[in-house]
């Protein structure tokens, strides 16, 4: 009897387990893509295609929007997130009921210059409940990560405490990781001597992305940087695509954006590492792509 019971149990659980997989199969991750010359409009549309900002931002939420403002370059050089994209996202957050939207980066160049030259300071001027902030040293909190490479690192408290974290990278070339997209954009919330993580950058980035999850990733591909990244400086290296990509799955978003460079998602080791560590989907045929 005992054996039979055991077998019954084992069999049924096996069946159930197998069945649940097919019955409750996870929805494939969605990546929405828009194209157009009105950057504010395509940004709003790309969010709408995912169900609108109210899906992520609820009344009274504190939202962090993290664009790439890393370099002292004007928008047309494709080294920083386009100001109109940032503005549209911020406005959507406010419309969805956000109590406060904080926008910041921890730039490589002088922060004052990057905020001005990227056009983002000007674009966000006068918006209510929106703060474009300079990072302050005391706010980097030494955070236990127990990651694969990083055990501990100072991360920015406002990113850690935000209700919603929206990751807004610009798609561009990078000398080490080949491309820098959503997964790499997270470096902007890191303090300390960030150059250190270059020695094992893929795992380090995934470690940080594990601690601070991006609820929404919106990749600015209005213009992309093809070479001499991540800071460019040559208009020849910038290509205008007029596209914006959004997803809740950071790996899927990065994987799709990779194709804009005529590269395969598997070529980018950061994306591959993220996929292997279960952060999201890399296979384009397992991703539902909505073109608006």
């Amino acid at each position, binding site marked *: 009897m005992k054996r039979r019971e055991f077998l019954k149990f084992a069999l049924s659980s096996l069946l159930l387990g197998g069945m649940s997989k097919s019955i409750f199969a996870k929805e494939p991750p969605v990546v929405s893509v828009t194209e157009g010359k009105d950057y504010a409009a395509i940004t709003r549309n790309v969010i709408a295609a995912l169900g609108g900002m109210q899906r992520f931002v609820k009344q009274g939420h504190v939202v962090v929007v993290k664009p790439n403002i890393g370099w002292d370059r004007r928008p047309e050089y494709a080294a920083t997130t386009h100001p109109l994209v940032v503005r549209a996202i911020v406005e959507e957050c406010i419309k969805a009921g956000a109590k406060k939207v904080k926008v910041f980066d921890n730039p490589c160049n002088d922060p004052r210059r990057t905020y001005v030259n990227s056009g983002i300071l000007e674009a966000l001027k006068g918006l209510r409940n929106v703060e474009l902030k300079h990072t302050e040293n005391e706010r980097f909190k030494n955070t236990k990560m127990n990651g694969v490479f990083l055990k501990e690192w100072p991360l920015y408290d406002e990113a850690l405490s935000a209700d919603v974290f929206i990751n807004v990278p610009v798609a561009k070339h990078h000398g080490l990781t080949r491309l820098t997209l959503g997964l790499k954009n997270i470096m902007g919330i890191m303090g300390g001597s960030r*150059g250190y993580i270059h020695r094992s950058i893929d795992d380090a980035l995934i470690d940080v992305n594990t601690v601070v999850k991006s609820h929404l990733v919106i990749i600015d591909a209005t213009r992309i940087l093809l070479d001499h990244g991540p800071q460019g400086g040559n208009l020849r290296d910038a290509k205008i695509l007029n596209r914006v990509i959004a997803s809740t799955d950071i790996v899927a978003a990065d994987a799709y954006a990779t194709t804009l460079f005529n590269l395969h998602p598997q070529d980018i080791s950061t994306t591959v590492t993220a996929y292997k560590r279960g952060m999201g989907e890399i296979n384009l045929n397992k991703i539902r792509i909505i073109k608006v």
Partner: protein
Amino acid sequence: MKITSARISQYLFLAVFFYLFINTEYRGKDEISFAINSFFRVDPLVVLSFILSKKTLIALLIPGILMLIFSIFLGRFFCGWICPLGTIIDLTTDKLKKSIPIKFLKTNLKYYLLFTLLFAALFNVNLVGILDPIAILIRALIFFLYPLFGYSIRVSWAGLYSIIGENRDYIGSLYSFLRDYILPFRETFYPLAFISFMLLIAILFLERYEKRNWCKNLCPLGALLGLLSRFSLFKRLPAKLCSDCKACKEICPTAFDEEILQTKDCILCMECTLKCKFNRVKFSLTGTGKNKKTKAPFLERRVFIGGLVSGFFVSRAFSFTSPSQYERLLRPPGVTDEKEFLKKCVRCGECIKVCLKSALYPAFFQTGLYGMFMPHMITRLGYCEYNCNLCGQVCPTGAIPNLPLEQKKKSIIGLAAVDKNHCLPYAKKINCIVCEEHCPIPEKAIKLESVVERDYRGKKIILKKPYVVEELCNGCGICEYMCPLEGKAAIEVFSKRKRDQALRS
């Protein structure tokens, strides 16, 4: 309470001084239209020494020439009406009890000082900035007081965070306002901070002995203006103490050491007109000839020749510098000729204040003793921001040329060199590329060579090894600044000066 127009002018100029001082900083615009450099451009001492050392005149300094001419006609009004150091002396030490004057200072010391400086300038070593009153004041502010001020507020602000955490954001806008409009964006503590500050303190300390002690007995600018004022048409009447009153002896801060008014010391503060009980005192344009009796010390051959000899001596005595100090001597962008720089630099520290990434520091011994307070770049502590040319904009004498941005980007500060013994991909077979990533040159002056090698486990890896392209590198130093190695950087910027230029003849 009645107040003289000189006082009002003093306060106005002090306000302008502080306004310009705070404005001499990146505040969101690529151009700084008004900077504290204006004070140097009207400073006759700076202008004169520039002319002597460069043997030419530049348009920037024409206001100083005008001031020189005005001073000939009007006397030392600069000291009593404009000079911010004088105003600060008046404000801070007004109540200080005076003991007896120091005898030693009552000699021709200030003329020796003045002539030594001027003759040294003539011999191509412009040291005027070390003792120029405005430079002394500005250096004390830039190198010490202003960073200290910024630091105290920043530390309190940071401390507030540790107490109330994110609630601090409720007054965040107040702090942002301070940071954006008043404070230095980041406070840097400088070498020579103590000396710079002590020079100012010493000047204030001298007030214990006598009113306006520095102005009257030491200040080379004051001495120069005093000499010029001999020809002044603008005279005080009566020219000596009235026998029935003599109150002026107490009232006057500078000019009544003797019975007769010393025109060369009168700073036209007008206190005597205000305080005269009998309404006797007048200042009027009376033409020449009233008080010829004061003998002009610069006509004393002793002082003139003494200044000449010591000026020559000073200009040569400290000229030794070891060549190794030149290897890493990096000057601000656009400065190509070390000797030219020595002729023009006022050592005011404005470029250092304005430097966006705190790359510039005042030198102490690096270029010999007479390079003191002159700016040099320490590229491990900061770097030259590619899109910034503020140092050239604020330099009062054009010692750092005000280059258009595109030209500044191409001007050579130095040359980066990779140290393969330390650099990660070379020395440890670990990829890094931080220097390449930060190199601001669009074509990248640091390039990467991808090499397939085996790491210590025998696993194949692609190493990206950086190398520097000399034709493209401008020596901005961001690579050295950003190099993630602890301690010594694996890429360093070296001076590109030609050998013969480094060694003084």
